[in-house]
């Protein structure tokens, strides 16, 4: 699935991933390929984007997470955070 992480200032991450674990407003949310369309507010915490054995981690706060079936080519996950710091 295709994952993008954007902050107000720039796009922080844009690429394929196997799994995303994000801090939603009320606890961690794990997104795997094939997730239903989903829109949730984000809280503060660590966002992990896993590709194979590698994993990118970001500290994020605020904003929202969106999962959309991009049609044919698998799902797309979009994390639009208020603040993003790579960690």
């Amino acid at each position, binding site marked *: 699935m*295709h994952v*993008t992480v954007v902050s107000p200032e720039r796009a922080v991450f844009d690429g394929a991933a196997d799994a995303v674990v994000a801090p*939603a407003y*009320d606890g961690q949310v794990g997104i795997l390929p094939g997730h239903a369309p*989903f829109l949730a507010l984000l809280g503060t915490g660590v966002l992990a984007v896993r590709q194979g054995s590698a994993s990118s981690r970001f500290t994020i706060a605020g904003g929202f997470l969106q999962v959309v079936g991009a049609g044919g080519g698998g799902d797309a996950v*979009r994390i639009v955070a208020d603040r993003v710091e790579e960690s």
Partner: protein
Amino acid sequence: MAKPRELRRRIRSVQSTRKITKTMELVATSKLKRAQDRVAAARPYAAALTEVMGDLYDPELAERFPLLRQPPEGGEGPARRVALLLITSNRGLCGAFNANLIREARRRLDELDRAGTPVDLHVVGKKGITYFRFAKRPLASQRTDIGDKPTATHAAELVGPLVAQFASGGVDAVEVVFAQFRSAVSTPPTVLRILPVTPPTEGRKDGKGMASPPSVLPSFRRSANYILRPSAEAILAELLPLYVRNQVYRALVETTAAFYGAQRTAMKNATDNAGDMLDVLNRTYNRARQAQITQEIAEIVGGAEALKG
């Protein structure tokens, strides 16, 4: 004719001025590049936010959000009190850039004054502040600490009090005057109404807002059957202030880019003019020098003739 020595002095002075303006042009060019990148980098966020807002927006929900409250008498009707946020630069040497922004702000102020609407004027940037201090117009707030790199935090600090005022009914509309960055040479001063929030519609054909950026993200198809957590209402309540803040952020980065565009143009013109001036001065200098030599020869020849008797 001017003395050669004076001409030499002027040539040297113009030369060093040209050196300075040339350097400033180069600096402005590189800063413009960076500012442009920031404008471009801000697009994915703006596009994502706008799209989701458009998806969630529902006129029935809108009734319940203070930020969507339209001014009395509906639509674009007269507001009772308006906050105007003017964004200018801290520094000059950028041609008519700030003058244009201030003129646009004045135009809007006059319009509102004529309608009898009190206006709170908020100004960013030394140039705007200096002007309105000179014009003896009281400012509701002013700040000069936003330099080359406006951040979302700056925008949040600017917009926070305005949103609070709007939500509590202190003002009925908030507008921003900024330089829209269409390209390095086209930066028209623009008035943008950020509150009440105009629900983002596809295409933004009103021509008033910032041109909607082409989506760089994979196209997300509208699907009404989202799982929404916690609820459409709660998400919208969270995103509305972000949307407003983001508009101010974009106004800030676009104005910064526009400023460097204007400065580069101004410095390029100054460099070109200095070059033209040098051409003329050099020609005059050479003629004066030649005239002096000719005169000296004439004197020597005259003297020799006289000695011959």
